[in-house]
């Protein structure tokens, strides 16, 4: 194979494409470009409407508001890449949060130990989803629909449905709500930093390791992956377990963000995390997408909320705009998938 030959062939192929096909081709290689485009447009539009949108303090605030959904969307991305879906995201997060908070409430248990137990519980919950999906071979939609109810019920029974305020909790559990940066300026919390680190770590694993390749392979064609020697069951099990760990860390971020552990803190978590993934260009059919797209997707959802509310637009219109974006994103995905050489 000579490089000149293949570039010449590529050149030839390129010349035969219409501009639209060329866009299709580029989006096929970089599925996060279209959400990035939308994010930039939204940013420019909102800043024009209200210059306060782009001020350092509102940018910092927006990142803080995005953090929890962005974190949950990491786990959701992993699972959607394997052609699954996780409806129990919010339930696992709330369960983990209520358990770590209740254990440590009013000096009941060492904060570190309570955090560890909360995280392990989230890991166990993710693992349970994984076992049900792999061993019983049930569709992820059904499994997580079931565990959604189970985990929610346990969380409510355990906590008695009441909130625990930050001043009843040890410093460690509240620590991710603390931040740095000037008051009234660009201020970030440790929670935002933690979520950023998770994006880097999982993004690295997905794009640079064999495990990441296998996640894509299993999602794209599970039987072909199995015949090629990929340990498909193990890949799926690790995906659901890692997702559980991510939800546990998100629970910790959430306590800091809301200044309390509240059973109904994130009622929209399931839909928002799925929305971020889909708007971010990851295919619901599995095997296609990039984690950076999910981050962009989460930012789009949040900037719509934030920008439209700055502009005084009614909440229902924000929900409506998000819905339109989801439909557009899925249509674009369908179109990209028809790409030809």
């Amino acid at each position, binding site marked *: 194979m000579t490089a000149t030959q293949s570039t010449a062939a590529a050149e030839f192929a390129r010349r035969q494409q219409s501009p639209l096909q060329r866009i299709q081709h580029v989006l096929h290689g970089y599925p996060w470009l279209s959400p990035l485009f939308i994010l930039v447009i939204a940013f420019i539009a909102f800043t024009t409407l209200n210059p306060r949108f782009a001020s350092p303090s509102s940018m910092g605030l927006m990142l803080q508001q995005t953090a929890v959904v962005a974190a949950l969307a990491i786990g959701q991305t992993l699972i959607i890449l394997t052609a699954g879906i996780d409806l129990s995201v919010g339930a696992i997060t709330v369960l983990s949060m209520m358990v770590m908070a209740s254990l440590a409430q009013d000096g009941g248990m060492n904060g570190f130990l309570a955090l560890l137990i909360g995280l392990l519980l989230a890991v166990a919950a993710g693992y349970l989803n994984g076992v049900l999906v792999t061993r019983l071979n049930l569709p992820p939609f059904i499994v997580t629909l079931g565990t959604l109810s189970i985990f929610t019920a346990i969380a409510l029974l355990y906590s008695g449905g009441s909130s625990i305020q930050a001043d009843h909790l040890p410093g460690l559990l509240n620590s991710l709500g603390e931040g740095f940066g000037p008051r009234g300026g660009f201020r970030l919390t440790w929670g935002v930093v933690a979520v950023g680190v998770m994006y880097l770590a999982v993004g690295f694993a997905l794009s640079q390791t*064999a495990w990441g390749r296998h996640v*894509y392979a299993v999602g*794209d064609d599970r039987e072909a992956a199995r*015949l090629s020697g990929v340990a498909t069951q193990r890949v799926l099990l690790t995906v659901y377990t890692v997702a559980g760990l991510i939800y546990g860390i998100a629970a910790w971020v959430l306590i800091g963000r809301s200044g309390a552990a509240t059973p109904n803190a994130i009622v929209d978590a399931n839909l928002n995390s799925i929305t971020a993934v889909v708007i971010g260009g990851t295919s619901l059919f599995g095997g296609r997408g990039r984690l950076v797209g999910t981050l962009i997707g989460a930012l789009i959802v949040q900037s719509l909320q934030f920008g439209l509310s700055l502009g005084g637009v009614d909440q229902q219109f924000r929900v409506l705009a998000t819905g339109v974006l989801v439909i557009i994103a899925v249509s674009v995905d369908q179109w990209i998938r028809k790409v030809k050489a």
Partner: protein
Amino acid sequence: MSADSVSTTDSTTVSSTDSTTDETTPHHGGIFSTAQPSADKTHPVLSARGLVKTFGRVVGLDGVDLDLYPGEVLAVIGDNGAGKSTLIKCLTGALVPDSGEMRLDGEVVHFKRPQDSRDAGIETVYQQLAVIPALDIASNLYLAREERRPGPLGSVLRMLDKKGMKERAGKAVQDLGIQTIQNMGQAVETLSGGQRQAVAVSRAAAFGGKVVILDEPTAALGVKEGNQVLEMIRQLRDRGLGIILISHNMPHVWDVADRIHIQRLGGLAGVITPSSHSMTDGVAIMTGAMKLES
């Protein structure tokens, strides 16, 4: 894949590493394989006895025996539904037979997953190809045996050696004389059916250590590419590998096969050779119009 197998593929000669004692087996199997083809041509490299596989009430395999010797091409022919694919899936662990015994180099083996047979030196091109459309060609060639970067990047961070794998994949494809695939970074879903087949065949040929099994590898290919695959099969045979070739193309079979295993209605109708029987006889046995005396 272990570090020393990486270094073997780096050296341009595929034959040099450890030809210390046995002069008759200086070659590695595939380009990337470290497994040595069996030296002893008189004993089967792969043999199966009494393989049975049922799917509910459908009998896919009804007690089939098979012997494959090193350095031979064993063709498997039979009508649609005769159990050819089921047979080779049982041999590779893609399906687990209900009963029967298999030996590799004389040792009893129980393959429970495709990975088991691959680890033992058996490479397979399945009829449904088993390539991942979303991944590029190099990733597909190295799927489930990815190579990591040297040093802590690889051992601690488990980072893939993407560049190295791409280069070695390109070289392997070139060495195999496959011209239909060029750019190793191209996604498989943008390839034609014939090119996808070339990817699957290259993977098997490059990594095959003892046995290469091909289930209708020329079905989607044109005349020229079909002949290239046949040429590759001869090369692998000459390196001492055992080859199982399933094909509906009788001229191909009579051209390349040393022996021909005929499947009929889930059972073994008989084993013939291209010199003992004509193509017409073969088809007659295959369809039940003629019985083989045994």
